[in-house]
Every structure is written in C-alpha cells, then in structure tokens.
C-alpha cells in the first residue's frame, strides 16, 4: 500500500505529474500535427508556384514569334544583395526569397530561367513530383512539373532547414501557450490544495498548541463536513479520557482523604499506649508501629499532592525570594528527627526572586532535600547551591548507573540504598518531576561530576 506521509505533498506531486503527463502527450501530438499541416501547406505552395510559373511561361511562349522560347531574366540580384538587417521583410521583398529556388528547363535540357540559387542544376535526374534533394550540406524540398504541351520542366524548391525552422516555429507557437500555463496552473493548484487542506492544518495546530492535560472539546462547527466525523470522534475520545482521568484523580484524592481518619485513630491510640504503658517491650513495639503509621501518613500526603498536581489545581503564582524559601524548608527538615542527621549547607547568590507557585516550589525543594538526606551516607553534608538559573542539591552516596537514574522518576520506585526506617513513599521524585513540568522547570538527576561520590539533583529554572 502507498504510504502517504504528507497529503499535501502527495496531492501536489500526483496532480502536477498528471497534468505534466497530459500536457506532454497533448503538446507532442499538437506539435507534430502542426508540423505536418505546415509541411503540407508549404508543399501545396511549391506546387502552386510551379503552376504559376507554368502559366507565365506558357503565355510567354504563345506570345513569342520564335518557336523556341527565349531565356527569361529574373531580377533578383539586387534583392539578394540588400541587407534586411534585423527585419524579415520590407516593401521590396522578404529575406527568405533566396531560400526559395526555381529552375525552368526546355526540352533540349537548356536551363533558361532560374533565380540563381544553388539548387543542383542537372537536367538528367528531373522527375515529376515532390522530392528531397541534398547538396552542399543543404537539403532542398522540391516539386518538379513537366509541361506536356511545350515539353519544358519547372522545378521549384525550398531549403529544408528554412522549412523546418518555420515549421517548428509555427508548431512551437501553437504549443507554448499551453506550456506557459503549466506553472500558473501549478501555483493555482498549490493554493487550492493548501486551502482545501487548511482545516486539517488548523486542527493539527489546535491540538499541537494544547497543554498536555487540555482535554477540552473542539468546536465541530469550525470544521468541514469531511472532518466533522473525525472531530466528533476526537471529542468523544477527549471526553472519555477526561472522565477516566477525573475518576482516577477523584479516587486517589478520596482514598487519601478517607485514609486520614483511620490513620488518626491508629496513631492516637498507639500514642496513648506509648504514654500509659510501663512495659518497655510494649513501648518498643508501639514505637515501631508508629513508624509504620507515619510512613503511611507520608505516603497518603504524597498521593494527595500528586493527585492535585495531576489535576493541576492551585495555579496561583507569587513572586518570592528563593533564598528565604530554601532556608524555611531547610529549617523544617532540621525539625524532622528522621532527617536531621545530616548537615545541610546552603550557598547562594544574594536575593534570587522567582515568580512561581509557592506551594509547588516548597514541595519540590522539600522532596529533593528529603531524598538527598534519605539516601545520603551517614554523617555527610548535603550541599545546596542556588543561582538565578538553577538549584543544585548534592549529597554523598553510592553512584547509580544510567538505567538506575532513569528509573528513579517512576512512581512507587524506591532507591535500593534507602534507609529502612526512613524509607519514602516512592512518589517524591515523581512529584518533583510533575511540579517541574507544570512550572516550566527541568529536573535532572545525575552522578556528581566534582570527584565526590554522590548524586546531583539539578533544577533548571529557565
């Protein structure tokens, strides 16, 4: 099956090829037909000229007192000498006259009338009718007529190259207007095809220009009948995808929401046991159960954040100071006993202002720092560096290969070196990536390049 990569190109090439083919065939036919007709016309002229000469010579013989006709003089010399310049003709004649030759021979084989053009002079090979004679690199088309009453021969000839030139010129003049129209036709066709395909272009521009989560319907009335069916189907698809997205988001949000109360119940009662129990073993078990509950709470919170980011809620942007925000997040981290084991050092350019959604940026920084701490070797320093164009967070931990790095963004995937007691939800980086996508940032995770073993989280802000 023909694989059409571009309808416009396909239509243009197909239509232009067809037009060119039809034009070439018809032009060839017209050209040859014209040539033939002109050739016939020239032949007829030759015959007519010979008959005129016959009539003139016969009259001359009848009027002559002598029985033998006297040679005639043809005053063409001065015409040949005249320069026509660029003109083809003037009031005295035409420059092609010398291309037209005639000879009249009497019965004795005596040439008594000619126009001094180098038509081969040979009485012996005179034969009635049309012939092509070659001489001195020239070809002549001749017509020979024998006067039966007085026995003289008339030979009229035209130079073949002149005939061909004229024939071709006439044939070409008949053909070229149709050739001239081809580029115009191609241009018009191009415009027509472009115009005809414009609804397709509009629909593709409309779809291409959309945000990745814009599933609003296309206006059916904007498109021609041929595309309406497709637009209706597209709208129906958008609707189904949208509904399924919303169901999924609602489910995650509702589930996360509904989990909060049972989690509260478990946490409150476990904390109560912790407070009243005097049994150290019980207190130890309860502490472990509380770690589990807290981990679950963290995951529920991350799920809620993710479902909100997926739904792209809360898009309000404010201008804030990145340094201040980063310090606040670092302070929060220090208050978290699970993550406070690492020293976080900040180096930053003075006062970096950003216009962003504050909640999103806070979550982004928190999650990246949280991750850097979670997977860092014990008692190492986490370095944070800020400037106008990027945020860098560097920790010290075993390096990862490219495949492991690319898998980090997958949801519910936790790093292998994660500390058992503080392991995360496996959603943190997924959330970071989503935030970056929504804020126009770019998030890269790579091994550190400064000679220290560790991971570098890089957020490109522009």
């Amino acid at each position, binding site marked *: 099956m023909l694989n059409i990569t571009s309808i416009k190109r396909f239509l243009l090439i197909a239509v232009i090829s067809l037009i060119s083919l039809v034009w070439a065939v018809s032009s060839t036919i017209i050209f040859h037909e014209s040539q033939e007709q002109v050739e016939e016309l020239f032949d007829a002229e030759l015959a007519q000229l010979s008959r005129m000469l016959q009539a003139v010579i016969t009259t001359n013989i009848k009027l002559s007192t002598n029985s033998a006709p006297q040679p005639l003089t043809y005053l063409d010399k001065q015409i040949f000498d005249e320069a026509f310049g660029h003109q083809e003709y003037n009031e005295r004649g035409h420059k092609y006259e010398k291309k037209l030759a005639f000879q009249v021979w009497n019965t004795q084989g005596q040439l008594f009338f000619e126009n001094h053009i180098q038509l081969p002079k040979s009485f012996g090979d005179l034969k009635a009718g049309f012939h092509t004679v070659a001489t001195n690199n020239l070809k002549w088309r001749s017509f020979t007529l024998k006067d039966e009453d007085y026995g003289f021969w008339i030979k009229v000839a035209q130079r073949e190259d002149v005939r061909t030139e004229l024939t071709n010129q006439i044939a070409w003049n008949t053909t070229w207007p149709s050739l001239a129209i081809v580029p115009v036709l191609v241009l018009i066709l191009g415009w027509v095809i472009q115009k005809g395909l414009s609804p397709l272009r509009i629909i593709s521009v409309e779809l291409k220009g959309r945000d990745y989560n814009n599933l609003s319907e296309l206006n059916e009335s904007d498109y021609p009948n041929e595309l309406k069916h497709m637009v209706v189907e597209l709208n129906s698809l958008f609707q189904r995808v949208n509904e399924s997205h919303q169901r999924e988001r609602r489910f995650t949000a509702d589930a996360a929401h509904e989990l909060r109360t049972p989690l*509260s119940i478990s946490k409150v009662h476990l*904390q109560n046991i912790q407070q009243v129990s005097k049994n150290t073993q019980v207190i130890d078990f309860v502490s472990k159960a509380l770690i589990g509950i807290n981990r679950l709470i963290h995951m529920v919170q991350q799920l809620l954040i993710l479902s909100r980011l997926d739904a792209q809620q809360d898009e309000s942007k404010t201008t804030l100071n990145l340094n201040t925000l980063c310090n606040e997040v670092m302070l929060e981290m220090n208050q978290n006993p699970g993550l406070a084991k690492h020293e976080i050092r900040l180096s930053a350019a003075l006062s970096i202002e950003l216009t962003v959604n504050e909640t999103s940026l806070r979550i982004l920084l928190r999650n990246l720092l949280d991750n850097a701490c979670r997977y860092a070797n014990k008692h190492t320093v986490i370095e944070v560096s800020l400037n106008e164009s990027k945020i860098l967070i560097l920790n010290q931990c075993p390096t990862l290969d490219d495949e492991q790095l690319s898998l980090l963004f997958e949801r519910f995937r936790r790093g292998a070196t994660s500390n058992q007691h503080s392991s995360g939800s496996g959603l943190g980086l997924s959330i970071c990536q989503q935030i970056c996508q929504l804020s126009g940032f770019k998030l890269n995770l790579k091994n550190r390049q400064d000679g220290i073993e560790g991971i570098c989280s890089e957020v490109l802000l522009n």
Partner: protein
Amino acid sequence: MRILLVEDDELLADGIVTSLSLGGFKVDAVYTGEHALHALGCEEFDLCILDVGLPGISGFDVLQKLRASNNMIPVLMLTARDQVQDKVEGLDKGADDYLLKPFDVEELKARIRALGRRSHGERQPELSFANIRIIESAHQIFRDGEEIKLSPKEYTLIHELAIHKKKVLSKDKLTELIYGWSEEVDSNAIEVHIHHLRKKLGTGVIETVRGVGYKVS
C-alpha cells in the same frame, strides 16, 4: 481546662478523649453538630475541638451558628481537608486554629494549651502566681524552684485556678472542669483536692472566698 470534642468517628473521639485526659484536660465528646450546639448552649467549656466533616450540620456550620450566637469559645478545627482554601474558610468563619488529620497528640495538646493561654490573655508558656510556677507543656509545678509532685486531678485543679488567676471559681464550676459529665463525683471531692494541694504548696496559695469558691492571686 474543659474541652468539648465534636468528632463523628467514635473510635477517633475515644482516642482523643483518652489522650487529652491523660494530659490533664477534661474532655466531653459529642458525635454530631446538633449535639455540639446543644452542649455548647447549655454548658460552659473552655475550648471546642470541632471536626469539619460531621454528618448533618457540618463543622463549618456549627462554627458559624456558634459565632452568630455570640459564643466566643476558642475553636480548634480538626479536618482531613488540607487545602489552603479549606483552612482559609475555617479561619474566616471564626476558628482559632486548624489541625490536619492525622495529627500528633502532642501537637494537639500544645495547640490546646496555646489556645487556652490566648483566651486568658496570656502569652507566656508558663503560668506563675505567688511563689508557684507551672510549666504547662511538661505538666510540672514548682514551688520556689523546687518541683512538687501532684496527682493529675490536683494538677488540673491548680492549673484551672492559675489560668483564671484572681477570679473566683465556684466549687460546681471546678467540679465541672475536672470531672465533666461522665464521672461520678463525691460532693466533697474538690475540698479534698484543695486540702491536698494546700499541704503540698503551702496554705496561703489557694484562697477560700466564703460562700463563693476558690481563687489564686
């Protein structure tokens, strides 16, 4: 401090009541908005912990009705909704604080203490009168810098008198604050506690206002 807890989930309400009771608070629990409005209309509480997602009348509606009836009791909203607009709505409707489920009971207690202080115009995390100093967060009481061990009921009693410094609290009011609805109380229970407290803290610390009640100054 007497607290009304409005939480429709009985299991959670039970946990919070236990937890706060262990922290020396007197907590009564109701499970619907209607019961909450009734209880707040009939009795005097120092603080209300109000769940937003109640069946029937929602927490926000209870709060609105409460404020419309000029009841200025400090209200701490408890909710599973963490969106900024939810918090804003709660605070704008007259809530004094907002706590997201699931919470840490220590945080809940700290917020209750802070609200208690604020409602009495206090800013200091410590209460002091005469030669007595109370550190609320640690439930510790010092006389002349020396820590005195008190029973939970005794602590609650002296704490109530301390936060109502210079105000006379009647025996009935003190009984209500310390025992709430659920416990059976001997008619002379308050006198017994006062007696013990005077023995531990010194006789001049708690004054008896004859025919009215007790106060500290």
